[in-house]
């Protein structure tokens, strides 16, 4: 199990590096097309980072407010608190604040910029359906997100997406105002430049590509959280049983939005199906790996 975790972490780092490279590539493309590529990229990164900084710092408060979570009473939700405390002992994490979301759909999420400022929430639907070992598996998955600093990772990814989007926007506008010409030193020609057309196309696609990479990072972190959870409980069948129950349950949650979709344990948004003609496209933008794959991977442990 430990080797799987290390392998996963390595894959994660590679993905993020690739993502960063894509951002650099976009910057270079900009430089090629309108000049001042470095400046534009840096400005875009700065703006995106500033916007992300607030969401990162207040990640826990925002996510909890959006989902209308209430603090879980230690007496009423004794079992939940006990499970969280037990797993915190197993992992050496400080105990996060525990919340409950009043929602019939079974789901759970964890948030917070680091283990000391973390929060964990489960829906009433989850508490009703899961038995002790299954609930423990879900809690372990969420605690693994906290332990692996996944909020930081996804904020990084979102920042890069934001930066790429900004760069593309700015550059396309600059080129548009410039009459579709590509400004280069010594260029006296007023006619359109074929490079510009290609550049346009690539810049338009860049944000889509960046979002696809963000989804890939998110999926990869979910897999890491699954494996870490099993390492924490030393009992993979618990999480497997929980995932099977989640797979068979068709209740749609009302407490998630596309902004918080990546935080929940299972794909909360309806309509993002994996079957059908455009299934492969949906899968590329999905924040969670298909649940059958997750179950199959854990069964191997």
């Amino acid at each position, binding site marked *: 199990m430990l080797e799987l975790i290390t392998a996963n972490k390595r894959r994660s780092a590679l993905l993020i590096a690739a993502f960063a490279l894509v951002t650099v590539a976009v910057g270079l493309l900009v430089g090629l097309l309108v000049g001042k590529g470095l400046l534009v990229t840096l400005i875009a990164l700065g703006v995106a980072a500033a916007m992300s900084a607030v969401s990162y710092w207040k990640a826990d408060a925002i996510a909890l407010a959006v989902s209308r979570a209430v603090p879980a009473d230690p007496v009423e939700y*004794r*079992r939940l608190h*006990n*499970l969280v405390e*037990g797993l915190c002992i*197993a992992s*050496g994490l400080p105990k996060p604040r525990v919340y409950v979301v009043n929602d019939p759909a079974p789901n759970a999420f964890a948030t917070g910029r680091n283990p000391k400022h973390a929060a964990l929430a489960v829906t009433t639907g989850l508490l009703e359906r899961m038995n002790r070992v299954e609930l423990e598996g879900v809690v372990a998955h969420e605690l693994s997100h906290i332990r692996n600093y996944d909020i930081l990772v996804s904020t990084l990814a979102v920042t890069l997406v934001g930066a790429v989007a900004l760069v593309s926007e700015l550059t396309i506008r600059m080129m548009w105002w410039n009459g579709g010409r590509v400004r280069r030193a010594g260029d006296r020609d007023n006619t359109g430049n074929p490079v510009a057309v290609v550049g346009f196309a690539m810049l338009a696609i860049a944000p889509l590509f960046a979002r696809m990479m963000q989804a890939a990072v998110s999926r990869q972190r979910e897999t890491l959280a699954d494996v870490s959870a099993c390492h924490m409980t*030393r009992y993979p069948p618990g999480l497997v049983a929980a995932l099977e129950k989640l797979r068979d349950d068709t209740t749609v949650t009302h407490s998630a939005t596309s902004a918080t979709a990546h935080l929940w344990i299972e794909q909360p948004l309806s309509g993002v199906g994996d079957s059908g003609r455009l299934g492969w496209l949906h899968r590329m933008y999905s924040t969670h790996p298909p649940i059958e794959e997750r179950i199959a991977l854990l069964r191997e442990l």
Partner: protein
Amino acid sequence: MIPLIVVLAVLALVALVTVIAYNRLVRRRNQVDNAWSQIDVQLKRRLDLIPNLVETVKGYAAHERETLDAVVRARNAALAAPSTPAAQGEADTILTGALRQLFALNEAYPDLKANQNFLALQEELTATEGRVSYARQFYNDSVLSFNTSLETFPTLLLARMLGFSKRDYFEAEEGAKQPPQVSF
């Protein structure tokens, strides 16, 4: 001039590596020590819950004296046991067995089963058993981490010099590997 700079650079590098290695070893060793004490904390917590449990059960099943007494005896023995892992493990096994007998009582006494207090205590004891195992698991994980740092290169070279030695894992006692006998 150049050889002097090279030598100084190498020495600085060695010093840096040593400092990093030392700090890592200290951090991990301290985590091992902390994890060991945590196990005792959880064991003590379990022992503290038992008198409450016995009192609750007495209210409903006073004539099950034998079972109740067995639990109280086992608890006192666990408190008094010497701190060696072997003695602790043995006391632990006897206590777990006695508790199982006690919880089996609720099958015969439906009023007891429905009693909120009893249910809450049952949950607490289950949770505490979980905590004890997790504490042991964390201790073993910490030992793994510490021993691995000790044995990997380059920390390996410095470890003995800096005065660190391997730690032992917590292992279940032979008795604990047998499932407790439950009789109705």
